[in-house]
């Protein structure tokens, strides 16, 4: 198949960081090319180079065999390259139509914008993804998943020859992922080249034809997916083999440490009751939009509720302030790390101690040395990849930012941990570290709620699984009888699994 884009010995240096350091890659039409590597390996940077957001420090980009230099995303779009970026890149206050056509609005002969045609085109494109939202809906009124789908529609709208998807499935539900696969296959058949970035191996094996592995910004290897195994890829990515994905452990379930009774918030979640025990990992599974995040936020006190009660230990959490939950030993790792998790412009140290400032302070003044040692200990535990603990978090890769959030909450010395999608966007190595870590904590008597949209993770880690659907708890499974199909069925609602089945 014809090579469309070729990257030759590409280097991209940021002050102090070599994000790309001699990467060679060949993208062919009619092929799905997986780009894999640990957090911070340089994948997103590569995307930004190919889309003209960043310019290369050295090296060459070839399109159709001739060398080009993209000075702006315009040049790259003109060359037929479109991307779905990892960071949110939408205009929340603008309509869907505008989000899709921004940068390449359609115009009437008079030079004025042709809204009618743009709307029709939008409906058409949405139709291809079986999306049925009015084109003049504001994007801020869409769910995370819907936004992602709009991003895909956007890439389609410019009839790109190369579409790059940077972790496109990270916030999609299973059904939507399936739809995405369909679409990718259709595009491939039509001769489009697809670059697919993902940390999920099942996905890579399901959809990709070829792969390129990066490590520390360097090119490690490439080839056909059919010729390799997961272990091979992991070894290439991490430089060493990985033992196991989920830790083996014998749960030691103790007393009730958190009791939620008839909790409800109108229109978001209804009648939620469950108990969480010491030493237990309680998995929450559901499709995106099932209301799990909102439930957890309400338990933690950063979101209101309309009724019901939350009792931690012996104390009822009445005040809608996270401070009270934290006092009772609850820690909450939120799902949206950029918005809710990290303070981007502050250093790793400052982020890590933010929720436990009291503990590292004396007379209201944080002690620099205590802060550093706390942070260093946690950074080591999560093998944080940073050039210095004083580095600002904005300069870390997504996965490493997530590690900082985890560190922040462990520093509070919690007894109850609520983890909302803790491994989203995290590479396998770290994922395994987080998993073993969850296991360790449970063994030490922590009570843990694990919210995840990854079925394997929920099944592999949890002692008990609760399934949410449209704001209600619809099923409960023990570790022993939690079968993938049944759990998924309950979440989708195809089989009417009853609670306590």
């Amino acid at each position, binding site marked *: 198949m014809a090579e469309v884009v070729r990257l030759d010995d590409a280097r991209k240096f940021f002050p102090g960081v070599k994000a790309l350091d001699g990467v060679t890659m060949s993208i062919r039409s009619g092929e799905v090319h997986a780009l894999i590597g640990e957090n911070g390996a340089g994948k997103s940077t590569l995307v930004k180079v190919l889309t003209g957001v960043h310019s290369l420090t050295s090296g060459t980009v070839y399109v159709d065999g001739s060398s080009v230099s993209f000075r702006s*995303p315009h040049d790259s779009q003109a060359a037929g390259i479109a991307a779905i970026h990892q960071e949110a*890149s939408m205009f929340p206050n603008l309509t869907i139509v505008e989000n899709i056509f921004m940068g390449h609005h359609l115009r009437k002969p008079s030079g004025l914008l042709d*809204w009618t045609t743009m709307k029709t085109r939008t409906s058409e494109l949405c139709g291809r993804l079986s999306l049925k939202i009015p084109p003049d809906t504001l994007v801020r009124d869409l*769910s995370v998943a819907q936004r992602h789908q709009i991003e895909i529609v956007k890439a389609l709208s410019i009839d790109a020859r190369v579409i790059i998807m940077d972790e496109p499935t990270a916030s999609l539900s299973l059904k939507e992922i399936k739809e995405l696969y369909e679409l990718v296959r259709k595009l491939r058949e039509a001769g489009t080249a697809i670059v697919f970035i993902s940390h999920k191996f099942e996905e890579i094996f399901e959809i990709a034809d070829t792969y390129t592995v990066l490590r520390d910004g360097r090119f490690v290897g490439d080839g056909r997916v059919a010729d390799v195994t997961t272990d091979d890829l992991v070894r290439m990515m991490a430089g060493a083999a990985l033992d196991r994905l989920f830790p083996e452990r014998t749960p030691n379930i103790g007393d009730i440490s958190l009791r939620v009774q008839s909790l409800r918030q109108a229109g978001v979640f209804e009648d939620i009751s469950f108990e969480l025990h010491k030493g237990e990992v309680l998995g929450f599974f559901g499709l995106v939009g099932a209301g799990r995040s909102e439930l957890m936020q309400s338990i933690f006190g950063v979101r209101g509720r309309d009724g019901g009660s939350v009792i931690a230990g012996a104390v009822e959490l009445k005040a809608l302030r996270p401070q009270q939950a934290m006092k009772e030993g609850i820690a909450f790792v939120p799902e949206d790390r950029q918005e809710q998790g990290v303070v981007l412009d502050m250093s790793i140290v400052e982020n890590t101690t933010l929720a436990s400032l009291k503990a590292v302070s004396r007379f209201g003044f944080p002690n620099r040395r205590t802060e550093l040692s706390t942070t260093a200990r946690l950074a080591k535990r999560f093998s944080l990849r940073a050039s210095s603990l004083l580095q600002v978090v904005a300069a870390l890769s997504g996965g490493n930012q997530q590690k900082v959030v985890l560190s922040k909450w462990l520093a509070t010395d919690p007894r109850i941990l609520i983890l909302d999608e803790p491994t989203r966007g995290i590479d396998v190595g770290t994922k395994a570290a987080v998993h073993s870590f969850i296991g360790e904590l449970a063994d030490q008597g922590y009570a843990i709620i694990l919210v995840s949209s990854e079925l394997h993770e929920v099944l592999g880690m949890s002692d008990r699984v609760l399934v949410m659907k449209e704001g209600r708890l619809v099923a409960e499974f023990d570790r022993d009888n939690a079968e993938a199909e049944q759990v998924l069925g309950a979440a989708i609602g195809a089989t009417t699994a009853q609670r306590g089945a």
Partner: protein
Amino acid sequence: MEGISNMKHSGFQGTLLHRIIARREITLLVIIVLLVAAVGIRAPRFLQPGRQLSILNDTIILLMLTLGQLAVILTAGIDLSVASNLAFTGMAVAMWNMMMPGVPMIVLVGASILIGASLGAFNGVMVAVGKVPPIIMTLGTMSVYRGMVFLISGGAWVSAHQMSPAFRGFARFSFLGLPSLVWIGVLTTGLVYLFLNHTKGGRELYAVGDNETAAGFVGVSATRAKIKAFVLSGAIAGLTGLLWVSRYASAQNDTAIGFELETVAAAVIGGVSIMGGSGSVPGVVLGAVFLGIVKNALTVIGVSPFWQMAIQGGVILIAIVANTLMDRRNQARLSMNGVSA
């Protein structure tokens, strides 16, 4: 079988009513109607058509400046130099007219737009290219441009008898029963509306203010958008400078002093998000008209002059809060509908 995420918003498909109520301009319109009615009860003369025209006349300059302010705020900026720009340009063209009374008005109109636009361009370039935060840049040029009025005028005023009759009459000659000032205001409003809603360049202002990174990803140049916004704001300020000195037949050093915050207030009342990316021309029109009515109403219903400032402040507060509340309630109701649908 539809995905839950798709069902969630089927309520949005929305009746016409929903779509109308969702527009926060309606709230403001209702507030304005109530206000006018209340004032009218107190002072029936206030409701006479001639009176409305005179309020309109009085509001046009604020409205035009606020349109420029809107463009800048849309890009998540702010232009505090508009009033100084107005004063400088007004003084410059008035002095030109004084020295060369024969120069035709059309030249002065062009000159005022050009002078204003260049002052705006200076703001824009420094903000967009020099990365100076807009509020700092325009706080700076607010005093720089104001000082320049003093420098070119030497501290003196240009008065009515030094202006040519054409210059003095420019803002008020009547056409189809309306003064030229109003026509120019309407024309400007129309053009800005067309620009913001029906041209690529206009939509890009929204994009840049809403999410600059994302704008970069789709090849929208934030630099160009910001410069455009400031140039537009400056050009309008320049034109209003000419209109102002012509209307009051006097160019002074402290012309329109303190007006910059009034334009911001009008924009905010009109529902423009100070964070950028959201705001509309109809909203701004209503915001400016609202302020204009408040100012004029207070003088008409015989409120003690000492009460006027407090009442103005209070009414502005109420309008802003009511506007925000309505907006939030509508949002809540809509998403609620969406969820239960």
